[in-house]
């Protein structure tokens, strides 16, 4: 399995009569895209907007952000398990529009820790500098669900609409010459050529059982993860559409964009290529629903890392708040006990910004901790020229915005590793 990415830079997106990529300008026939998306009869309509990098604009509530990507024939499918059959992702060539994104807005904030406005795409102003999304060209997709449809069906419709838009846009690039092509090195527990280098694995949580997933919530190859045990995945599966975030992510959040551009996996690939380490593989895991579930999952994940990947070191990330935090620490503790050195990425859980209140674990061996911030950072949210929202209610919630917290700005405190906001202890 060797994934190839063909990159096509995009510097502007415009609505026009025929969808095509000309140089770095993407022209989009929104009528055709609309027809495509409205094949889903859960939706009564869908609106589109375009947003430029740094534009004096904000959009909310963000449901997901996806990089436009489309598979060349002969390889894996686009978003297998959701748009296509659930066959292995990561094979063949994927064309992507670099510098572009599809941002789906919900009609209502998801609730949970995001509050009334949920996550905001902040394109300019003091908060924007902290997010990688403010420097992209966005096609904003605003699906409108039919009334009377249960919430989980609405969310599924949003999900499919965004992914369809992503594939539709990137298909314009299939006939064009890419600006660059990158083929990932072959990696895995039995690969040759990196003997003697530290064998490193990645353990990433993809869901937290603090809530039950919806029966049709599609997360891993379209499955909702309910009842699953940790599973081995090839890194390219994360990068090539096997995974999307669940409907609710708390604290810094996660977007499809950073599964496709997974910061930890990309970094490990880079270091593997530079012959600093041997990237032996990944485990996708879930935070448990109770102590027993935690014990079961943590041990299963640790066993896969030690006995199948034969790793000497592992890096771990979490998905969500306190329970995922504890599960990640427990997995790391077990790994250390098996001789695998670990480093974990935590978010600031203190409420009073005091170190004493901050950690929910205290294992001396789990002593390599990257500390992501966001808990105490707020910015002024200046009036902007353009506000794009999913519904009038969302618009009202956004109108009174004077200040915005780091957890509400998409991309700033990202839990997938893209965040540059560090919580510093002093």
């Amino acid at each position, binding site marked *: 399995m060797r994934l190839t990415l063909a990159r096509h830079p995009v510097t502007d997106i415009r609505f026009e009569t025929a969808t095509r990529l000309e140089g770095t300008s993407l022209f989009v026939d929104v009528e055709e895209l609309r027809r495509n998306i409205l094949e889903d009869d859960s939706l009564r309509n869908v609106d589109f907007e375009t947003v430029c990098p740094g534009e004096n604009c904000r959009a909310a509530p963000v449901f997901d952000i996806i990089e436009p990507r489309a598979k060349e024939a002969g390889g894996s499918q686009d978003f297998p398990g959701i748009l296509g059959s659930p066959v292995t992702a990561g094979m063949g060539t994927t064309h992507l529009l670099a510098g572009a994104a599809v941002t789906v807005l919900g009609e209502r904030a998801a609730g949970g820790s995001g509050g009334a406005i949920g996550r905001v795409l902040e394109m300019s102003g003091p908060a924007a500098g*902290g997010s990688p999304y403010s420097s992209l060209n966005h096609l904003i997709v605003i699906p409108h669900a039919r009334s009377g449809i249960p919430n989980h069906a609405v969310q599924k419709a949003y999900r499919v609409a965004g992914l369809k838009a992503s594939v539709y846009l990137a298909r314009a690039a299939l006939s064009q010459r890419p600006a660059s092509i990158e083929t990932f090195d072959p990696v895995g527990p039995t690969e040759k050529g990196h003997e003697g280098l*530290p064998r*490193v694995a990645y353990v990433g949580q993809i869901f937290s059982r603090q809530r039950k997933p919806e029966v049709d919530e599609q997360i891993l190859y379209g499955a909702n993860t309910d009842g699953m045990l940790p599973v081995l995945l090839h890194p390219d599966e994360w990068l090539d559409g096997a995974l999307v975030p669940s409907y609710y992510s708390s604290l810094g959040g996660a977007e499809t964009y950073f599964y496709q551009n997974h*910061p*930890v996996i*990309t*970094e*490990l690939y880079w*270091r593997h290529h530079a012959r*600093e*380490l041997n990237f032996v593989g990944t485990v996708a895991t879930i935070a448990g629903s109770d102590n027993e579930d935690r014990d079961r999952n943590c041990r299963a994940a640790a066993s896969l890392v030690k006995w199948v990947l034969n790793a000497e*070191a*592992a*890096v771990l*990330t979490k998905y969500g708040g306190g329970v995922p935090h504890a599960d990640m620490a427990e997995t790391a503790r077990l790994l250390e006990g098996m001789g695998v*050195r*670990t*480093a*974990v*990425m*935590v978010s*600031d859980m*203190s*409420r*009073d*910004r*005091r*170190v*004493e*209140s*901050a*950690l929910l*674990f*205290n*294992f*001396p061996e*789990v*002593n*390599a*901790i*990257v*500390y*992501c*911030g*966001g*808990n*105490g*950072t707020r910015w002024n949210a200046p009036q902007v020229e353009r506000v794009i929202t999913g519904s009038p209610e969302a618009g009202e919630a956004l109108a009174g915005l004077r200040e915005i917290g*780091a957890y509400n700005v998409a991309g700033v405190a*990202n839990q997938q*590793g*893209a*965040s*540059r*906001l*560090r*919580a*510093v*202890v*002093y």
Partner: protein
Amino acid sequence: MRVVHYLNQFFGGVGGEERAGMRLEEREGAAGPGRLLEQLLGGNAKIVKTLVCGDNYAVEHQDEVIASVLKKVQEAKAELFIAGPCFEAGRYGMISGALCSAVQSELAIPVVTAMAGENPGADLYREALYIIDSGPSSAKMRDVLVKMAELAKKLVAREEIGLPGEEGYLRRGLIRDEFVEQTAAKRLVDMVMAKVTGGPFESEMVPTSFEPIPMPPAVKDLSKARVMLITDGGLVPKGNPDRIEGSAATRWGAYSIEGLDDLKGDDYEISHGGYDPRFVQEDPDRLVPLDAMREMEREGKIGKLHNEFLSTSGLANPLSNTRRIGREMAEKVKKEGIDAVILTST
């Protein structure tokens, strides 16, 4: 820049332990280590007053000394207040910390002090103040004064203060956010590589250690013991009369179970946002096991069940609240002559 400096009897040049009882005195200009400090502060900095007090007197009359110092600092129109450096001297460290803390909060002017990490004053005040780590030995006086002066200048100029290692102060145990060059992913892989190759690395967070609690001795004779029930599951009488908050609770209550054998769901509600309350609402004994405890009482397994249970909410509650609530509950436990407590936690 007008500066007021506080010294103890020894550094103020009055005498040793035998003068530790001296009252607060005022001197014009700099004295003792203040002279060098004034030079190091540079520019137009002038120590306009030096306040000297005996360590014993200060500790025994702390409130009076604080009030006095506040008045004098205000009269002197000081823009900076410095106390110490105290090195290992415990009483000196305590009063310096107390004075700096009071000046900071009452007069809102920058304050700096210095003492060794083990000084009891450090424990109490490190979170509230910037305390330069002086180490125990006064042989390092010059170095310490240099660091104090540098930090003081930054505070007065309202410049950003760097990390403890950079500026030389005792880690305060606080958290702030900063944008850095490298993504969390890069920092994560860097750290594990250092760890697995045996290289040095600095964790961005050090696990906090809770001090071990000495284990209280076992109850000798439970059949004679007075037992109290406490919960952090937020069970309160309907209407939540004490308005205990569901999250980050600052309050707790004591609720009568006199004459009751059983808790009825109709009489109670749950103020705690962190768990599904349905089961406890249906039957509060599932959280506060009154019915089982009454059986124990009847069967003579315990002497007496106290006629109240204590309750608060443990959800997302910072230690700054829970430490206090725990202390207050412990006082009540002692006051009521309780021999043993059963705490039920969600």
